[in-house]
């Protein structure tokens, strides 16, 4: 869709979200709220207590006879693997378990209590195997293989597993030759960072209800970012047609990636297949939510970066080991995204990058808001700071000099599109009075400022589709059908704005049809990758154009006028030549009568539209080179001012500023809401969050022990700045912003801590204890500087 010459007033307008009234009154229906009546059964799952073991036997006979139990399922009945990019996961473990919490058996019973009691009666005999908990151990030549059959697994053609190893994807980038230029560098920084596992922590845990009718048709109600992908993947795993699976996805109570793809949804289906006609509900406890589904992969990143005396970055070597956990069906593509975006938002002539997705016996890694970019930039952006310091250049000026610009040839060979990154850097820096000293603070405290910049492309297959429908009602109001999901990001509101603006009708006259239902809603690949405003927005726009065409054909025939002379303003079709007008409500369904009612023109109006990028190319297996690796990059910057308490190590955030180039803000208030929520989630991941494992068992699976940001942890000042350099193929120039606001946060705060007290740490979380310890070490041993 080309950008329209004139941008309608509704685009860029801060209209109210379309979903807030329901949500504020408790009327909004989430999956757990759907009523199923007395026929409902409740599922509980028997899980592996071991990180790695052979299953020698499973005896379910006692559980099956337990009063109130209606079905028991194990992996015996489900031999096919499942997975998005690499089919390496079973519904229930078969032959071996690979992480603590892996489903081994399931029970459906008349209550959760009965199901839970029956789990104790299932006897599983294990033979313990050595386990691996760190990528460094997984890649050793003599490491035990977690997936000995890796070479036989079905895999997407852009993922490269190494059979006979624990490496499930190796993505390479080779551009120029860094080895030729290290000697020409004035400063070189080599660093290794470790970014630990964190969890998404949606306030709504995963819920899924499955029902199989007497004909074998499956209906799944699930708290899902991906109803269509779930339908497709589950169908393949069960050997069914997607047309016999229906997924209904109500409002999602927070996703952040963990409700993408397929995780626990197959479990109630497996049980429902054994009790036809009865719905089976599985709702994860908070503890299960923490470590039995997706978590954010840990990352080991080794970086070597060099620049000349003027500050030009000349070379980068970047080796990433992503701790994919026991299954990497989704994680393999995070390694790929880390690979093609390995430079961060910089123009670097010589690049060598190796991004490995590695199996371990930790819990399964999956997509998490930012899809690897927060972890990657945590490394890149600290090294960039160190390089600038070494050559004595201002850190903002250094970034302005090296930031990627339109026309730059990226590490993959793709040509960069127009981007507002420099404007983001300048505005974020200006907002924290960069270059000016902080206000004085008490003697036991130190203030510092830090900046970090970022880029992120939607990470997805080359051809993820979107579609939309527009149906006119008798009174001229409109039902907008989309398959994208409302997770809280505001996707439905933005879709309505685009539809109303492109059609020429009032915002209030358009309603999104919900819940998303794969039987009735138009197709959408997944609600991930910050892709909806752009991709689904394009489909909505196409549907609006199709609808206008149908409307104009009816009216032009009735009036004997050229369709080119017609326009729709505020729900009224007008002719620019004859100045005749007719409201949509006068003909939307029933048509327009001929003179003297001698016949009718028109009929129900139903518009449709689709969008699928058709220009993304493959990348060479050995060099990562290709014409166009991704659809586009959203760029931005964050700047922080912080205060460190020398007595306790506690950080206080004085100022937190975001600036992102969103192409065009369809709803600026919602864009700012994403920036605010994202930066606070980023701060939470920087200061508090880490999943602590002992022998593969998470030690802190509760809100008491795994702390997330509360009302008491807010920055004193938050500012969110919108930059708009239009996206050539975005609706009205828009591109996504959902994930980006937490991508640079860890690095920006790390840089501010260094500015304040001169310490750098191996990785987050930068807890008071960790900072205090580092301050002590610095005091006694002297801080190690970053000289070559």
């Amino acid at each position, binding site marked *: 869709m080309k950008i329209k010459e004139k941008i309608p007033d509704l685009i860029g307008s801060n209209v109210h979200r379309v*979903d807030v009234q329901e949500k504020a009154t408790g009327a909004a229906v989430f999956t757990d709220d759907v009523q199923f009546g007395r026929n409902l059964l409740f599922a509980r799952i028997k899980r592996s207590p071991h990180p790695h073991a052979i299953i020698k036997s499973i005896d379910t006979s006692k559980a099956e006879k337990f009063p109130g139990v209606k079905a028991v399922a194990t992996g015996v009945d489900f031999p096919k693997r499942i997975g998005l990019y690499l089919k390496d996961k079973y519904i229930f473990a078969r032959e071996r378990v690979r992480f603590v919490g892996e489903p081994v058996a399931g029970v459906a019973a008349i209550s959760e209590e009965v199901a839970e009691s029956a789990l104790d009666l299932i006897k599983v005999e294990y033979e313990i195997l050595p386990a691996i908990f760190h990528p460094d151990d997984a890649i050793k030549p003599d490491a035990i293989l977690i997936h000995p059959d890796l070479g036989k697994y079905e895999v997407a053609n852009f993922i490269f597993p190494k059979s006979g190893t624990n490496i499930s994807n190796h993505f390479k980038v080779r551009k120029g030759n860094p080895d030729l230029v290290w000697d020409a560098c004035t400063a070189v920084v080599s660093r290794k960072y470790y970014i630990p596992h964190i969890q998404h922590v949606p306030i709504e845990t995963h819920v899924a209800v499955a029902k199989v009718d007497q004909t074998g048709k499956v209906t799944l109600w699930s708290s899902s970012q991906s109803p269509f992908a779930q339908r497709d993947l589950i169908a393949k795993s069960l050997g069914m047609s997607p047309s016999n699976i229906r997924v209904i996805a109500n409002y*999602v109570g*927070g996703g952040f990636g963990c409700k993408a793809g397929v995780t626990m949804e197959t479990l109630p289906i497996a049980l429902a297949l054994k009790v036809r006609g009865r719905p089976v509900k599985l709702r994860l406890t908070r503890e299960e939510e923490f470590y039995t589904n997706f978590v954010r992969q840990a990352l080991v990143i080794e970086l070597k970066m060099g620049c000349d005396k003027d500050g030009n970055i000349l070379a980068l070597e970047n080796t990433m080991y992503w701790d994919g956990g026991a299954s990497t069906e989704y994680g393999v593509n995070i390694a790929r995204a880390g690979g093609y975006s390995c430079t961060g938002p910089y123009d670097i002539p010589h690049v060598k990058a190796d991004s490995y997705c590695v199996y371990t016996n930790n819990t399964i890694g999956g997509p998490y808001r930012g899809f690897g970019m927060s972890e990657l930039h945590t490394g890149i952006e600290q090294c960039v700071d160190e390089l600038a310091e070494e050559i004595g250049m201002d850190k903002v000026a250094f970034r302005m000099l090296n930031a990627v610009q339109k026309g730059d040839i990226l590490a993959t060979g793709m040509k960069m599109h127009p981007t507002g990154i420099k404007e983001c850097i300048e505005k974020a820096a200006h907002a924290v009075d960069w270059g000016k000293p902080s206000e004085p603070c008490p003697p036991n405290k130190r203030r510092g400022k830090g900046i970090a910049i970022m880029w992120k492309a939607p990470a997805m297959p080359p051809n993820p589709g979107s579609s939309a429908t527009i149906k006119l009602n008798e009174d001229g109001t409109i039902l907008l059908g989309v398959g994208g999901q409302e997770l809280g990001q505001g996707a439905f509101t933005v879709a309505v704005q685009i539809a109303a603006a492109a059609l020429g009708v009032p915002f209030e006259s358009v309603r999104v049809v919900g819940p998303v239902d794969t039987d009735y809603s138009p197709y959408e690949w997944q609600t991930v990758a910050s892709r909806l405003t752009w991709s689904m927005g394009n489909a909505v726009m196409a549907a609006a154009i199709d609808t206008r065409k149908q409307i104009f054909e009816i009216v032009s025939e009735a009036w004997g006028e050229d369709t080119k002379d017609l326009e729709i303003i505020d729900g009224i079709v007008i002719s620019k030549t004859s100045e005749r007008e007719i409201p949509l409500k006068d003909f939307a369904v029933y048509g327009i009568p001929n003179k003297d009612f001698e016949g009718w023109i028109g009929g129900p109006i139903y518009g449709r539209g689709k969008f699928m990028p058709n220009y993304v190319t493959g990348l060479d297996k050995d060099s990562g080179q290709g014409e166009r690796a991704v659809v586009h990059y959203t760029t931005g910057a964050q700047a922080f001012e912080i205060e460190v308490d020398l007595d306790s190590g506690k950080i206080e955030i004085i100022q937190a500023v975001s600036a992102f180039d969103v192409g065009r803000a369809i709803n600026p208030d919602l864009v700012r809401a994403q920036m605010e929520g994202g930066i606070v989630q980023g701060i939470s991941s920087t200061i508090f969050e880490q999943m602590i494992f002992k022998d593969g068992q998470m030690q802190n699976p509760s809100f008491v022990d795994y702390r997330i940001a509360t*009302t008491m942890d807010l920055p004193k000042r938050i500012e969110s700045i919108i930059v708009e350099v239009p996206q050539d193929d975005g609706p009205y120039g828009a591109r996504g912003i959902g994930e980006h606001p937490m991508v640079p946060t860890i690095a920006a705060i790390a840089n501010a801590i260094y500015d304040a007290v001169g310490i750098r740490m191996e990785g987050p979380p930068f807890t008071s204890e960790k900072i205090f310890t580092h301050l002590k070490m610095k005091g006694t041993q002297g801080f190690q500087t970053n000289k070559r």
Partner: protein
Amino acid sequence: MELIKIHVTVNGSEEILDVSPNLSLLNMLRENLALTGTKSGCEAGECGACTVLLEREPVNSCMVLAVECNGLSVETIEGLSEKEAMKKLQNAFMDLSAIQCGFCTPGMLISAFALLKRNPNPNDEEIRMALLGNLCRCTGYERIINAVKKAAKK
């Protein structure tokens, strides 16, 4: 388990229910009365999503047994939505986009409602303290705090 008969006033109307002694107030509301506006987020009293008013005081309904509510009054988001003070809060939340996924919203609104009842003009610190037990993963809280301030001013 033997069921126990209880009398509870829920949103102003008296309910007579036969409940098992281990049933939580949260599940009584959601399962026995289908009042699904009250959300379940952790069932451990840690997230605040299930906040309701018990005898006009905010409680985590997951930490209260249904039998303990015998003879008492409970108010949920469904009932409170009829009250002017709650409508003011809801409107402020809507005006300021203080709602994203909406899962924490009912509990957040009820904690804020209880705050404004006991302290009609809270300062920032008092609002933060009152909402400390309500976790939100989407908004970053700032808009929520501003919305409570806005509702208080009206």
